[in-house]
């Protein structure tokens, strides 16, 4: 069967071509972060770790990195707690207009980050609130809360409801049920929501750009580095950011999905 062999060849070459396209920019980014020279473009002059050294000794980049981590972990924690409580309330109790409430909580997901950022910026301006990492954090909670709520709400099934009822019958108070029964049972989805939120906040640019002033997050700092054109140091920071994101996803994959798969 020549035609089947031909179609097989065709599919594998298509696969290879698309993977090439998908990985080309990342490969170039990482490869030329080791460039021994001033320009991160071919020809490759040889490998050096000089640019990584410069990145880690650059105090502005390092404080931007710390800021990013603080904002990411802080906003993800707040979004997770708020999302978990709201999911608990809406899944376990009968509340009026619960469809409307769910819709409201999900709504920010359907709006461009640019518009959320602009809305917050005009409001903070109008109220005279000065911009800082706090305002960035507020913005990041707004974009991550719908995600956390949706993920945790979707995983609250009737199976857990019965266990919670049993705990309540045995005399547990509501907060005990929530923290000692529901939260541990839902831990995989809570962790998934948390790590996804951290990843999104860590990578987010436009909200961080518009809502910060003096202390900035890493994507904003990288943005200002772009003005100097192509530079192996920018490659090195970019590679670090990429590696952190991949590491976060690996944690997510290993802890969360393995655990759910086992169950």
């Amino acid at each position: 069967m020549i035609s089947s062999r031909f179609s097989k060849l065709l599919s594998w070459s298509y696969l290879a071509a698309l993977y090439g396209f998908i990985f080309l920019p990342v490969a170039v980014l990482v490869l030329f972060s080791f460039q021994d020279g001033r320009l991160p473009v071919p020809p490759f002059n040889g490998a050096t770790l000089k640019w990584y050294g410069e990145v880690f000794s650059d105090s502005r980049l390092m404080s931007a990195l710390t800021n990013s981590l603080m904002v990411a972990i802080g906003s993800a924690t707040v979004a997770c707690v708020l999302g978990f409580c709201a999911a608990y309330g809406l899944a376990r109790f009968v509340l009026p207009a619960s469809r409307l409430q769910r819709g409201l909580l999900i709504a920010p997901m359907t709006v461009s980050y640019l518009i959320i950022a602009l809305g917050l910026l005009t409001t903070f301006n109008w109220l005279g609130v000065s911009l800082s990492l706090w305002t960035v954090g507020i913005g990041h909670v707004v974009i991550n809360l719908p995600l956390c709520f949706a993920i945790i709400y979707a995983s609250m099934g009737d199976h857990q409801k019965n266990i919670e009822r049993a705990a309540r019958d045995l005399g547990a108070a509501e907060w005990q049920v929530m923290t000692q029964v529901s939260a541990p049972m839902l831990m995989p989805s809570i962790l998934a929501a948390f790590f996804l939120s951290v990843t999104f906040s860590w990578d987010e640019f436009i909200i961080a750009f518009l809502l910060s002033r003096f202390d900035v997050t890493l994507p904003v700092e990288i943005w200002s580095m772009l003005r100097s054109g192509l530079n192996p140091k920018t490659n090195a920071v970019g590679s670090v950011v990429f590696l952190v994101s991949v590491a976060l996803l690996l944690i997510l994959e290993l802890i969360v999905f393995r655990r759910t798969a086992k169950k």
Partner: protein
Amino acid sequence: MATASLETRENRRAWGFVTPALLWTVAFFVIPFIVMAAISLATRKGREIIMAWNFDNYIEFFEKAHLLKGLFVSLEITLTVTIISVILAYPLAWIIAERVPQKWQRMALIMAILPFWTSYVVRSYSWLLVLAQNGVINNTLVYLGVISEPLELASTRSATVIGFVHFFVMLLTLTIYANLVQMPPNYRRAAADLGANGFQVFWHVVLPLTLPGIMVGAFLTFVLCIGDYITPQILGGNNELALPQVIMLQLGRRADFPMAATLSIILMVVVTMAYIACARWLKMERT
């Protein structure tokens, strides 16, 4: 009576759980949106914002060519990107679902969307490395002697489109793959038994069944693409501005908040219209 009081107590407790998240959403999403909508009806005098409560900004948008053009540039880029991404992603998702052995599929999929997780800024910069005047493509082609003068690849609409397509091929591969593996294999077998050839099975059975997945992915592409500032700014340059770039321009030099708010509202109306069209289409498909 006792049950009624129990219910109200339960209810009060339930509100306690839901209220913080609702308050957050109202305070930092709903109210800012209302403020922005109000500001779009104001005018700017110097650096002062005066509430005029009229639609002058909206009228100005339709009268001034450079503002209106931003919307058209954005729409053109977004539509081009959506179509190219679907055409490229569908075969990829198909090959992963059909040709790649079962136990490697998850791995293949994770690999296919790995660069999805680089931040917008870094991803666009990486494409700049590839496309710039002294970038990878130009330097390689000059070195090989294919061209003598570097090509003008960056700071063009094509560069913006390439940067976007790269991102959305990954997204769409994910959504289309999810759709393909959900489809029961019996459908295809039945069609084949009834005498359809490979192409007919695809065209009359597989494609219509995966169309909803494509539409959802295409809608996501549309929303994310039309609201993005980074990719056109880094890769497209300042030759022709997309709507988000025009919005940012109002903020930067001119501090024209009313106009920026107006443009944002218009952007949102466009997205909402796309959403309604998509939802209506999906509903029609189902009935």
